[in-house]
């Protein structure tokens, strides 16, 4: 018997979803991956998965919610695989001497700053963004999940399948390198 309503979306409907949601999805993916190219791939893969699994979609659900849940799973997979496969770029690793104390040239000196002014300084924020981009790709997943997604260390270790000591080593190295970069390009200038 005809119900008067389709159970499975057709080409036109999926195309309309792409029209309506692709821009937002790509922004969301760029925010989460730092790369426009990867974001585009993930959004395409999301629609590919959606098309393959259209039978699972029910019209009482919101297509946007369904598509974003697929995309978020793709982003999680990306971070996990990026962490395992990306090679680290050379970054400074000579902050400490053999006995674990600061090398003379690396010992932090006082920064003369007013924090509230810094956050409003576009030039400073640009420099900070460049410093972040210099960090190895492999560390980005950890930094992003911690600071932008507010995940706990335990959640991040589970999601990326890394040990707690590996997690702290990455946070520590990333912060040391960011500090040095800001010191060189802003505070010591």
């Amino acid at each position: 018997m005809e119900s008067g309503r389709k159970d499975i979306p057709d080409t036109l409907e999926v195309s309309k979803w792409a029209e309506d949601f692709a821009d937002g999805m790509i922004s969301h993916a760029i925010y989460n991956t730092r790369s426009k190219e990867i974001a585009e791939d993930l959004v395409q893969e999301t629609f590919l998965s959606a098309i393959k699994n259209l039978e699972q979609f029910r019209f009482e659900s919101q297509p946007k919610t369904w598509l974003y849940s697929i995309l978020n799973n793709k982003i999680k997979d990306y971070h996990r695989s990026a962490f395992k496969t990306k090679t680290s770029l050379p970054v400074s690793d000579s902050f400490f001497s053999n006995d674990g104390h600061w090398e003379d040239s690396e010992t932090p000196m006082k920064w003369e700053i007013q924090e509230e002014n810094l956050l409003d300084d576009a030039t400073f924020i640009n420099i900070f963004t460049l410093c972040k981009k210099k960090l190895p790709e492999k560390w980005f997943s950890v930094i992003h999940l911690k600071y932008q997604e507010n995940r706990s260390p335990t959640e991040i270790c589970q999601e990326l399948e890394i040990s707690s000591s590996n997690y702290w080593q990455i946070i520590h190295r990333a912060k040391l390198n960011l500090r040095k970069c800001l010191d060189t390009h802003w505070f010591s200038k």
Partner: protein
Amino acid sequence: MKKLQVSCEKATVLIEQQLSGLPPKGMRQIRLALHYKICSGCLHYYRQSKLIDTLLKETPTESQSEAAFNKEKLLLRIRDLMDKK
């Protein structure tokens, strides 16, 4: 040279854990406090690392304006896939 109870390398790891809401406990806490008293480098590191935490939280990963997406290409691909289905 004064004898430091923890090395600066170890102290800065403890600082990161402290800034993440996992402060050292017991003897480690005392050693870190003592370390701050005699190592100005680590004290500066603590303040600077705190500022970097704020920056990492407040500055987005990437400008969302970079999301100029080739939607036409995606739509063509969707239609193609749906036709094959």
